[in-house]
């Protein structure tokens, strides 16, 4: 465990963002996860993403379920409200929160146990509803807090620390999300900050549900030979497909990418996400081809990372429901209560 308390002093040379905040202002409490845990790298990526997006910390709501991953919202954005809820229920709670206040930026941090077993239904339906949120799965194939049982994402044949081989086929959150109609699907690796931070930023600006599956090896229970979610295994089999570069709407959009190698996706807020293709024929907007490509890669043992699919034209939950633009929590009571005259009138129909 990392017990060293970080000092609160800010070095004068620390870079400021447009709000005049430093990256330290986006940090949280000290992590209590195991030293070297991939989740802590993801936390650092989240801190960086919010800092670079100039998001006021209090305009973020961070939610989680139960598990190692679900502890992490305590470790970033101490100026944001957090909700460490119940095992598997984060997506439902985030859905209700988003229904009540559409102005906040929602980030849900979950794990493969939380999302792919007990909470699978809620995650699937949050995807269907297209709730505007960043949903991160910190995926390590193992139940850490209960000491190393296989999770639903553990690969077949993958070995536990005790040497037992997993006999069941895994649930791949990326394939699942694509089949459920997710409008933003990405995968990254906790040890690859260069790729992760732009993906997180793009996901936070996506106008809908953005699933980011991050392979995050468990140093205690799943970083040994035979595990398919170990650092060694992932590094060896990782194939980055699409590099994401994010340009906020205020910045000038540069054009130093040759036609044919850059796919531009305009986000709902007007910002542009540039996708640098590694494979010239990869198109992240064609769901059918993405699925078949991922299937082929999977068969050959590759873990495809990058922004795998995006559909910026999808209808987010509130737009689909035609909810008023003002957050429901900000509506004055007078606009909600029909009053005594309406009640009197209504009751003539109950005579």
């Amino acid at each position: 465990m990392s017990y060293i308390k970080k000092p609160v002093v800010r070095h004068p040379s620390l870079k400021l963002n447009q709000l005049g905040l430093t990256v330290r202002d986006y940090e949280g409490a000290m992590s209590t996860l195991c030293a070297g845990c991939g989740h802590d790298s993801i936390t650092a990526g989240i801190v960086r993403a919010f800092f670079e997006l100039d998001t006021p910390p209090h305009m973020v709501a961070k939610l989680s379920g139960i598990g190692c991953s679900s502890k992490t919202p305590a470790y970033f954005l101490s100026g944001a409200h957090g909700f460490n809820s119940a095992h598997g229920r984060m997506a439902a709670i985030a859905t209700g929160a988003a229904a009540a206040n559409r102005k906040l930026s929602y980030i849900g941090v979950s794990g493969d146990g939380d999302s792919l077993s007990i909470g699978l239904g809620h995650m699937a339906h949050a995807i269907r509803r297209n709730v505007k949120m960043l949903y991160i799965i910190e995926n390590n194939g193992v139940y850490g807090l209960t000491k190393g049982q296989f999770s639903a994402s553990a690969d077949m044949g993958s070995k536990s620390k005790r040497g037992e081989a997993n006999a069941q086929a895994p649930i791949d959150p990326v394939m699942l999300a694509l089949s459920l109609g997710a409008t933003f699907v990405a995968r990254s690796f906790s040890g690859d900050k260069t790729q992760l931070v732009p993906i997180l930023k793009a996901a936070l600006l996506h106008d809908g549900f953005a699933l980011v599956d991050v392979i995050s090896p468990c140093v205690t229970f799943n970083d040994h030979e035979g595990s398919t979610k170990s650092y060694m295994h992932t590094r060896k089999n990782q194939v980055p497909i699409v590099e994401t570069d994010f340009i906020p709407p205020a910045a000038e959009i540069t054009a130093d990418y040759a036609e044919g190698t850059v796919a531009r996706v305009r986000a709902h807020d007007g910002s542009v996400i540039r996708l640098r293709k590694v494979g010239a024929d990869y198109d992240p907007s064609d769901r059918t081809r993405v699925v078949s490509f991922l299937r082929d890669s999977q068969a050959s043992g590759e873990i495809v990372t990058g922004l795998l699919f995006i559909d910026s034209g999808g209808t987010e939950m509130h737009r689909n429901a035609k909810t008023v633009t003002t957050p429901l929590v900000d509506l004055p009571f007078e606009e909600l209560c029909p009053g005594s005259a309406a009640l009197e009138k209504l009751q003539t129909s109950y005579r």
Partner: protein
Amino acid sequence: MQAIFRMGIPVSGKNLFPSNIQGLPTWYEVRVNLRGHTARTSEYDLMVAMNAETYARDVREVRPGGYVLYDSTWPLDPALMRDDVTFLGVPYARLCNESFTEARERTLMKNIAYVGTLAALFDIDMDIVSGMLKEKFARKPALMESNAKAIQLGHRYALEHFECPLPFRLESMDATKDSILIDGNTATALGCVYAGATVAAWYPITPSTSVLDAFKGFCEAYRVDKATGEKRYCILQAEDELGAIGMVIGAAWNGARAFTSTSGPGISLMSELIGLAYYAEVPAVIIDVQRVGPSTGMPTRTQQGDIMMCAYASHGDTKHVVLFPSNPRECFEFAVKAFDLAERLQTPVFLLSDLDIGMNDWVVPRLQWDDGYKPHRGRVLSKEELLALPKFHRYSPEDELGVAARTLPGVHEKGAFFTRGSGHNKLGGYTEIPDEYQEVMDRLLRKHRAARTIVPEAVIERRAGATFGVVTLGGCDPAVREALDVLEERGIRGNFLRVRAFPFGDEVEAFLAEHDTLFVVEQNRDAQLRSLLVMETQVAKEKVRSVLAYGGFPLQANQVIEGIVARLGAGASVNGTAPHTNGHAHAHTHGAHDAHDARQEPHGDEGGMP
């Protein structure tokens, strides 16, 4: 039933239906009497036997001296005949075949013709009946014409062939002019709208589905911007009840008034997150329209079987605030109250209705609304209040109710805290230290106890010379009141208390203390209200006896009377057991009478009269 109501007469209707979409028999019972008792009774004065499949049962159930109205196009099986019952045959099928040409109309209008006959037999005001037809079919004149014709057929035939009206008949009164006819689920939904609820999350389940149907309807009427079509509400049909309560908690955590509506099986599923809301102190309004359990039980039958579950829902030490409305008017009022309590106490609040209250039409005084009402949002810190504080801590300091101030996301980062279902101390920080954990748990207990001072008080009615007390709740109200009236006529007097909330107020404690003999009347097998009283008050267990009815139909006065009389023992002299003996004597003297009918409705609803 609506026509009787419009004649100014207190009336009740109970729809007894199976858990099925189409094809199984359904009964609809209407009860009317001079004294306004409207609890269910199974003493039928007149049975409308519309379904040949259930003739035998229908005929058997009519009281001696009663009447059976049937379609005499086909002869009744002589084996069904009873000497002590009058059979009134009207050849509906033949009359309709002669008067209507289309096959579908012939079938549908046959059912409508019964209405005309009943109007003749009971002397129902035909102007009211035709007025209702005009309202119902204002936009479908063709349908109105055939309905009116069918009613006339039945009416004329009765006048020509029977002695009309029957010895018991209806006379206009003015007892309902300030009342409305409404079901509890509609009234509950209306309460949620008036309370300013903006987020509703639910999963369909009988018998609570119509709460959300009604909420949606009212929101469409009152909360949609006419110019833009934008909605000032969000209804989430969840993937399951676990999701539904999660959404409510998320929305309420963010500061919205949010609720879910479900039935017992849904509460079972929601229990885990109800514990989270209790411990993390997030408001939530949970409407439970009870049905018969356990398990799937009987989804279209009524019961009060969720009292204990709601009072203590979830693992660990949890105690909740539960409101017990007894009729649609209280559903409306308590729905509003539930939001105020949930936000004031920062805790889940249950509105415990049931199928009988929720799905049947009740005559209740008109709903009232005070335009001066301001929602009680509880202790929520504004940005200015936050800035004035040296430091914000989520769970201290507490007020006189044991409640600490909360903050909402998006207001200011000084108010940010980490909501958690895991062990926490009074500052909101994670803890596994015994004293810190207990300190918070003890405050939660104080808070629950303090709630007794702000929940709806029990209704108490005393009778001079009362020798015992009756405690009841919810939809038992009319049957228990009727039973006490009937018992008083027999010289047996009891005081009445209806609890309207848990935790119990001091007035409940005092009532229990003042009686040596107490009966608790409720609709479940395990005497759940009695158990709750024994556990949560000082009452001596030995002096509290149970009167239970839990077969699934609304409670009847005779069940209460029999239960009380049997337990009072030989000391109580009682003439007869049926409550109607006196009722009928009374009615005969005054000319207006009990008229109960049960009719089967195997027809589709198009063109039908309610």
